């Protein structure tokens, strides 16, 4: 049913776009009184008679590319006769009228189709970026706790360590990179699922501390890469307090 809903939305969108594109198109089969006085929004007809153009002469025949009537010309009876003689079927005009719009019922049908398709595909839960989460039943708490523990461990390891700056720096870079591509990436990937479960407002509240925590971890990485280990530690300290706040928020949200 969801697949059907998806295809219904696609087909309806295509039909809707096609119907919309005909909004300023008028058929020459309409009675003259409905057409006279309108203004051309696109050229109409050709200087060369269409029936003569089946065997184009060698070289460019510019008359075939020359329209009979230019943009802005008012439609009158003589024009209509000349265009009908050339078997022209449609005109693009500047004025829109609901009653002249040939695609209006298709447009309405397309709109209904999209709404029905939405109803059928309701169980689908894409993120705003259109990604359907592959993670199922994801629990963020273990990842947040793991982040907290690792950050605490890194702080302990770098405090008054006897190791050289180079080795400490590499250690920090490696461990922080693991966090970035592990726990933090999983939390980011689970965004759609978390929003579906918690609601957007609750998720937004969660990011009040989770996003700064991630940013501080990123800062710890950048400053470590530049050898500014003390600042890296300060960032880790800030990340730790934000992670604690995140853990508490998760607990309160259940």
């Amino acid at each position, binding site marked *: 049913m969801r697949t059907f809903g998806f295809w219904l*939305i696609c087909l309806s*969108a295509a039909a*809707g*776009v*096609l*119907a*919309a*594109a005909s*909004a*300023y198109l008028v058929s020459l089969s309409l009675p003259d009184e409905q057409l006279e006085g309108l*203004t051309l*929004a*696109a*050229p*109409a007809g050709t200087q060369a008679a269409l029936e003569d153009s089946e065997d*184009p*002469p060698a070289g460019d025949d510019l008359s075939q*590319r020359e*329209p009979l009537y*230019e943009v*802005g010309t008012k439609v009158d009876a003589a024009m209509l006769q000349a265009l009908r003689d*050339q078997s*022209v*079927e449609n005109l*693009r005009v*500047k004025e*829109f009228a609901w009653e002249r719009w040939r695609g209006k019922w298709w*447009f309405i049908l*397309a709109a209904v189709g*999209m*709404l029905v398709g*939405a109803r059928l595909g309701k169980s689908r839960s894409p*993120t*705003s*970026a*259109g*990604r359907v989460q592959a993670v199922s039943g994801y629990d963020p708490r273990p990842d947040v706790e793991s982040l907290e523990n690792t950050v605490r461990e890194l702080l302990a390891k770098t405090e*008054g360590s*006897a190791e050289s*700056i180079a080795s400490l720096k590499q250690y920090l870079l490696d461990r922080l990179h693991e966090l970035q*591509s592990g726990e933090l*990436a999983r939390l980011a990937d689970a965004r759609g699922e978390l929003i579906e479960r918690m609601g*957007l*407002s609750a998720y*937004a509240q969660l*990011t009040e501390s989770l*996003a*700064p925590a991630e*940013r*501080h971890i*990123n*800062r710890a*990485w*950048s*400053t470590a890469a*530049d*050898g*500014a*280990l003390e600042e*890296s530690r300060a960032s880790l300290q800030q990340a730790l307090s934000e992670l604690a706040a995140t853990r508490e928020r998760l607990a309160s949200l259940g």
Partner: protein
Amino acid sequence: MASPQTSAQPATASRETTWPAIIFGILIGALMNASITYAGLKIGFTIGGSAVGAILGFGILRGLLRQGHILEINICQTVASAVNIPNSGVIFTVPVLLLIDHERFAFTQDGAPTPLFWMLTLACSAGAILGCAFIIPLRKQMIDIERLRFPTGVAVAAILKSPGAGIRKTYVLLAGILLGMVVYLPVALPEIIKNLPEKSTFRKLETVAYERFDWRLPGPQPAAPNNPDDAARYARELQDVDHDGDDEPDLILSNDLLDVGRWWGLPDEIPLAFAIAPFALGAGYVTGRAGLFVLAGGVLAYFVLNPVAFAWGWFPVTVEASEVANVSRSAFNRPLGIGMLLGGALIGMLASLPSVRAAFAGLGKASKSGRGSDELGIGVLVLAALLAIAGLYFAADYLETHDTSNVPPAAEAGGEAVDAEPAESDGWLSALPSHWRNLLIALIGAAWIWFGGIIIAQCTGMTDWSPISGMALLTIVLVMLLTGTQNVTGSVLIGAAMCVAITCAADMMQDLKTGYMVGAIPKRQQSMELLLTGLGPPITMATLILIAATNMRATSGEPVPEVEPRTAQTTEEVATGKPMGPGTKTEAPQAQALQAVILGVQGGDIPYALYGCGSVLGVLLGVAAFPSLGVLIGLSMYLPIAYILTYGVGCLINMFVSWWKGARWSEEWGVPFGAGLIVGEALLSLVLSGVDQILSFLQA
């Protein structure tokens, strides 16, 4: 040999907002601004400056000065892009005045810039500040909560992180940059070569490249005629494969296009051609699967709507199959796409309201606590916005009260051929006294900037494409409707300010994404952008005037100060050169498109129904699938399909690599490579446009 350091004390203190970073950022930004202004006026689109700013920042701060920390270079690139980016908004709008009525716009009799020039500069600077001030409160929503991708922001972060990411990743990034430059070279180089003097040695390069080492592939040749009776058949078949009229089949692989449709023999109304654009490929890769919705929009417009409309006889009979894509873009793809974009953005904003509320609540809380907030406070932003609105009002009001000569209807002013008689009409606000009307327009403009800024930032965040040209057209139309169709100058002034604002908004969000990924403190980046982005418009405007003066000399031989300004009383042509547009080296394609729209509005030709239908479809797509779908589909309906297809290939490669090697591998190794492609093209474009600009000035 120095003994190893044995404590965790820092070898150096980390630096972030430093004078060298700010000064070099301004210098780099000013250089990029001038170069990109010139390139944009030639080719019709601009290059973002962040990646180039990051690379040059590394080169100068780290390479030459032996300093430059990651966060410091981030500030350098933030400043550089803040100074550079307003050029997009300016060059898509302001040059239209040069096309319509250049004598009055550019110089007074004694050669000094006119008041209009200064007021435009003031309005654009006000717009730049307004764009930044309005988008800053949405950082939390777009980056922390929505987690928009911002591919170029990710690419810049990859560059910034390269010193700590390990040598192998740096090689991957450099390989991407190199490949991007090599692939883009045949696209960019001919533009320079054709500007060189005929006898130049470099001019021979093109001949050598095409005659001795021709990599290009011609399309299938029709069978030669066997007898005179067969000549008509040959002419017809040749006409089908020769659209440029050189009596040779067009190329399948040219400098900038791989025409697979021609290769496979698809009908001409189905333009299956891929742009040779490393930037688009890289951006597609970095975006990944979500970018497929952009591809879907392109497919819908160019492979469903246009061919069906052509088959059903909806185009004039004089339109050939190969012209369908171009004709349909202005006839219905663009208004439908822009409408869809607006509808999609509207539904997206409604859906995001909870997160916007949460973001504002967070800001408010931080402002109240008054300590240690990482975000710029609401008070500062309100003050900046009020000052900018006041600047905008002053510029609009001064222009109206001190420079009452309206630009004559474009048809009389030497614009393109107009088929309809210009129909001057009063704007919706024409009945108001001028001061109140200008104040109201400044306020409406501010509201539109907020909405437009969100749309552009969302588009850039999701796809890396910025619908600035479409928004520029819509903005000018909106202001003309408000102020009256004869008020082209005032409309362009407000429109230019709005366009500058929305480009600055998108760029700022991109820089903040980069900052998030390297751990920068948002407040510092925000302060820098807010303080320095106003420098951009004067640089762009000065470059614009310089280019106009050079073009006028080159096309008339008359020195610029001798140009007589045209008054409103006379529309008689004065014997001067052309400042811009067809026949000059800077054709300003976007300004020409805008001129056509202005002429259309003056002729009463606004396809309201198409905008309306597009908006309804955008809203419905948002309701039916997910809120931003209308934005993604609408955006790609009027962009050139060749770029959309290349971008789509990037998305598909990402999906394939993720399936083959795993999502983490794709992110770890693929993204730096994709980032390299983006940066390579931007870097080469900038260098070549700089060279081109110098050569042009030397020639003139």
